[in-house]
């Protein structure tokens, strides 16, 4: 054993290392720290006191506005209560450690370690509850998939990405609807998976909360593989853009009616600003011809955003789909503009991490059979499973979501610290 060459010894040592370190590589970011920063705790306490005050007020006199606010705050208050009870039980257990009874000490020791572990998750839950919820989180969404610049390879991979999400939806039991599926003329399906050269595809996921599920998927998805058209076997790198847009819940009368016609709503589109174009037949139209297609194009003139739709046989449905898509695109754009303002105001270091559709978020490397998320730093293998919307894709998407929450907490922290610094300055001034 001791005469084993040093090379082998190194390998044995490597085997002894915990396995998880190999799989979980924290490349670009660290997991959010588990011990709660003081500023956050302070904020949570403030919210909890407000919650208590409002709920006692509610007991004497009911007011819808107050009730709504209490509902919003209760998440934080509950999380804080749990965290504090864990905290106090730790204090209790620590005193028990001084006990003279050997058995009791042992019990306290065991209990303490489990409570400590629990405390981490509670602290995490508390900081998560403090982050502002995404305004679209409860909405259904539209997934738009488009090839990135350059070449047919991107188009083929776009089809693979489209299928990945569709299969993911059917696996997870989400109701998905293909609004648009447009392939480029004149090129055949190819490859083992018979991908088609995709021009643009829109997948509507109808379940409430789908936006929250998919919001981490927006961005550039990079692929590195040998295209089946490539004769000399070189690896190509291309990209596919995925946009995630909030969409309207169907049949949700109070939401739809309000938001469609309320000019303050993100979904409000002034019909006067939209130019409607229909496909014109060359001939006399009417009874003279029996066209089967009814293409429609909507152009929002102030922004130049345009949507065209011709997938359905029903012109009515094409028009509805086109409006849905246009509304969602405009809402996303307006929201981005609003966020841009918010970020500019905060002027935070974090602003560079804001995810827009320009950033590369994930790489699918075929030759290494690996899929890497660049934000969470998670690496998973078995790319076939990822592209089939399987267990591994679920893992990647969850890691992304965790990362997003972590980001939100950091942003919150930065905000709180800035506010605290300003408050301190003010206090100093007033002292003088």
């Amino acid at each position, binding site marked *: 054993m001791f005469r084993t060459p040093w090379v082998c010894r190194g390998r044995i040592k490597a085997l002894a290392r915990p396995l998880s370190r190999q799989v979980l590589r924290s490349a670009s970011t660290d997991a959010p720290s588990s011990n709660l920063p003081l500023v956050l705790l302070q904020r949570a306490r403030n919210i909890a006191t407000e919650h208590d005050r409002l709920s006692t007020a509610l007991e004497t006199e009911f007011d819808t506005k107050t009730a709504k606010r209490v509902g919003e705050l209760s998440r934080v208050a509950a999380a804080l209560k749990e965290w504090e009870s864990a905290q106090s039980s730790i204090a209790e257990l620590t005193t028990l450690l001084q006990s003279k009874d050997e058995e009791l000490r042992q019990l306290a020791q065991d209990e303490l370690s489990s409570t400590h572990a629990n405390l981490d998750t509670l602290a995490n839950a508390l900081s998560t509850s403090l982050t502002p919820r995404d305004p679209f989180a409860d909405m259904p969404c539209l997934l738009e998939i488009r090839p990135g610049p350059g070449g047919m390879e991107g188009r083929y991979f776009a089809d693979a990405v489209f299928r990945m999400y569709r299969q993911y939806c059917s696996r997870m039991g989400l109701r998905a609807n293909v609004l648009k599926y447009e392939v480029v003329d004149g090129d055949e399906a190819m490859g083992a998976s018979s991908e088609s050269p995709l021009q643009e595809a829109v997948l509507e996921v109808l379940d409430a909360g789908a936006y929250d599920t998919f919001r981490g998927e927006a961005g550039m998805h990079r692929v590195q593989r040998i295209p089946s058209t490539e004769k000399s076997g070189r690896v190509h790198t291309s990209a596919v853009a995925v946009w995630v847009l909030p969409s309207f819940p169907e049949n949700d009368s109070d939401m739809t009616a309000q938001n469609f016609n309320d000019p303050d709503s993100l979904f409000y589109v002034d019909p006067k600003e939209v130019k409607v174009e*229909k496909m014109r037949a060359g001939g006399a139209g*009417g009874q003279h011809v029996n066209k089967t297609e009814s293409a429609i194009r909507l152009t929002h003139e102030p922004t130049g955003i345009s949507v065209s739709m011709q997938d359905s046989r029903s012109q009515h449905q094409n028009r509805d789909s086109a409006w849905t898509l246009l509304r969602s695109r405009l809402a996303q754009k307006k929201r981005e503009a609003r966020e841009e303002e918010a970020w500019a105001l905060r002027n935070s270091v974090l602003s560079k991490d804001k995810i827009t559709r320009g950033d590369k978020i994930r790489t699918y490397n075929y030759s290494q059979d690996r899929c890497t998320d660049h934000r969470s730093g998670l690496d998973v293998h078995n790319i076939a499973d990822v592209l089939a919307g399987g267990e591994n894709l679920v893992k990647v998407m969850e890691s992304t979501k965790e990362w997003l929450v972590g980001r939100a907490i950091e942003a919150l922290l930065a905000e709180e610290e800035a506010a605290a610094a300003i408050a301190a300055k003010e206090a100093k001034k007033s002292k003088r």
Partner: protein
Amino acid sequence: MPRLRPSFIRRAHNISSHLATLLPACRDLRSAQNELRWIREHVSSSLAPAHEHNVTSRSCVTKTAVAVIKKHLDTEVQIDRLCRLRGTRGVPLQYVLGSQPFGDLDIRCRPGVLIPRPETEAWVFHLADLVRNVIAEGALSRPGGDVDDRTARPLKIVDLCSGSGCIALLLSSLLRSHLRGSDVDIRGFDVEPRAVSLAKENLAYNLRRRVLPRPRAGRQNVVFEKADIFSEDWLASLHHDPADPNAGGSKLGAPIDIFVSNPPYISMRGYDCDTGRSVRNYEPRLALVPHESLRISSFADCAPEDVFYARLLEVAEILRPKFVVLEVGDLAQATRVLEMAVRAPRPWITMEVWRDWPDMAPEEGEDQVVRIGGLQVPVRGSGHGRTVFLQRGA
């Protein structure tokens, strides 16, 4: 029709042999791809449930395997058959699939009855919007009655040359959802028995699909009947109907509210030159070109393709509708119809021409007004002149 280039067909064939089959009818790759998708959807939805029964194998595993393979084969055979019908024989897709979406409705289509057109769908929507606004203003209530009174009296609509029934059914669907407490009474007439039976079938089918609202109190609100609108008997039957609103849906009873028609309006020459091949080969000529004998009989002074409008305006004098909407072939025909309408004994207070897409902004070079004698008649929307709209005061 220009010949398809062999290289083009080859390219389509490389994607799918079905596309190459569809190409002669579709003429371009994208619409061929769309149509192939629709055919596939149609086949898979129509084949889906019927296949569990006719498989008789011993073990359960082979049973399902055989079923899957058989289903796949059947699907492919079906798709191939439908593509050939559409592409090689040039049958309209609507006849191949047996249906055409029309607004929210799904209208069954069969040879012998005209296929609903998107332009028709557009003007029906426009008309429904207009009528809704008028109702909202309370102007469509019974003469002398107040606004609440309209609950007592249904909105009366007559559709002549109703064909597949698409106009009547869509109006019913669009208006009834908006007429709270009130009702619509629609009568459709067509000379072709196949059209009448198809329209009845469409009514029942869309009621089953729950796209159309259920009739109240078991009374049928939409009725289709066979009638020759040129026959004197039919015209006389209109006269004899009592103008009693309590008579119910079985009597026509002037005055009615809305009078619509999409009559045959293509000239003989237009039929030979301007119509699509699949229209000429498969759609009924009866629904497209007015029969020559009609002109000789009573309306010798108007163009043969305008015969129906002369008759429709006569009928309108008897039924005294508040709104008249007649589909026409082009702006020139619209002008001729307006000239006839101007000569009516009782004047129309509003006259308009709607183009193909009445809600769209007009393009450059599209006139927004036509002159009829000394009158200026507004032309709305964009596209070909498609409908003549007439309104009389309440």
